[in-house]
């Protein structure tokens, strides 16, 4: 799976949720205060639906999936 394409898709999801948003591979969506708690769930659910995978809130914290690069790796390794 192409990392660049996943990055663009994640950006598209974030624009849906936040309006215009400036993110890079290193952006930490939660630690940097970009997404609040409800927006995080919105982001996760849209990723789950797009890539047919399941991510719990606890996994998000444990695997630091709030960092865009980590989420991209997670999608590459887990999507069906």
């Amino acid at each position: 799976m192409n990392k660049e394409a996943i990055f663009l898709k994640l950006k598209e999801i974030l624009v849906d949720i936040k309006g215009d948003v400036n993110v890079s591979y290193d952006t930490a969506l939660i630690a940097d205060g970009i997404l609040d708690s409800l927006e995080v769930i919105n982001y996760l659910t849209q990723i789950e639906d797009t890539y047919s995978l399941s991510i719990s809130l606890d996994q998000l914290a444990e695997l630091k999936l709030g960092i865009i690069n980590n989420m991209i790796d997670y999608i590459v390794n887990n999507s069906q």
Partner: protein
Amino acid sequence: MQNQNFIVTGASSGIGFTISQHLLQLGASVVGIGRNEEKLLSIKNSYSNFNFVIKDLSDELDSLPDLIDLIVKDFGKIDGMVLCAGIQDTIPIGSLKYEKAKKLFDINYFSNLMLIKGFSKKRNHNIGASIVIISSITSSVGLPGISNYSASKAALVGLSKSLAVELSRENIRINCVSPGHIKTDLLANDKHLGNDFLSKIEHRYPLGLGTTDDIANIVEFLLSDKSKWITGSNIIIDGGLSINF
């Protein structure tokens, strides 16, 4: 309640399990409905007056009135039914999909409607029968991310009020119980809540979080003759959450 016959949906876990236990310990017979055969079998092993039917309540909803017919055929007329099966899914409106939303409504709302249809047949219930529906405090206070769940629970309150009048001529009472948060698998299975969810919200409960026994006690009362003049009510049992400023 000794020797009376009850149906409990969601008997395999959490609130429904504790309600079943209360009724069984009072000497009543209970037919539990659920999907988890292992859990239902373990209740059966502890109580000879417990029987169960394996059924996915999101499947073939039109057949649910017939399921009540079959239960009555096997175990006799019913004195009361507790509609407890339910699921919760935290999904903000921005990512809600119709199919998922509909499935939740099938389990939380439509299955109950169809089970009550079966129960309401004259040949299926005894005189003075009582139905208790487990709604939720989220049917009347706003919690973000669970709009569809809250709507399904509010629908049950509306349903019970209309049916309380309609079924009064059948001598059936019907009431809702709306609990606040209780530690059960419902919250653990909602993967978007996180395992620290309850500790984060506990401070909002003046009396602290409740237990499944707190809910079973009120359900027991509503099934009994002690509540014979109560119908169409929605009893909020939330440790003071909804009146806390």
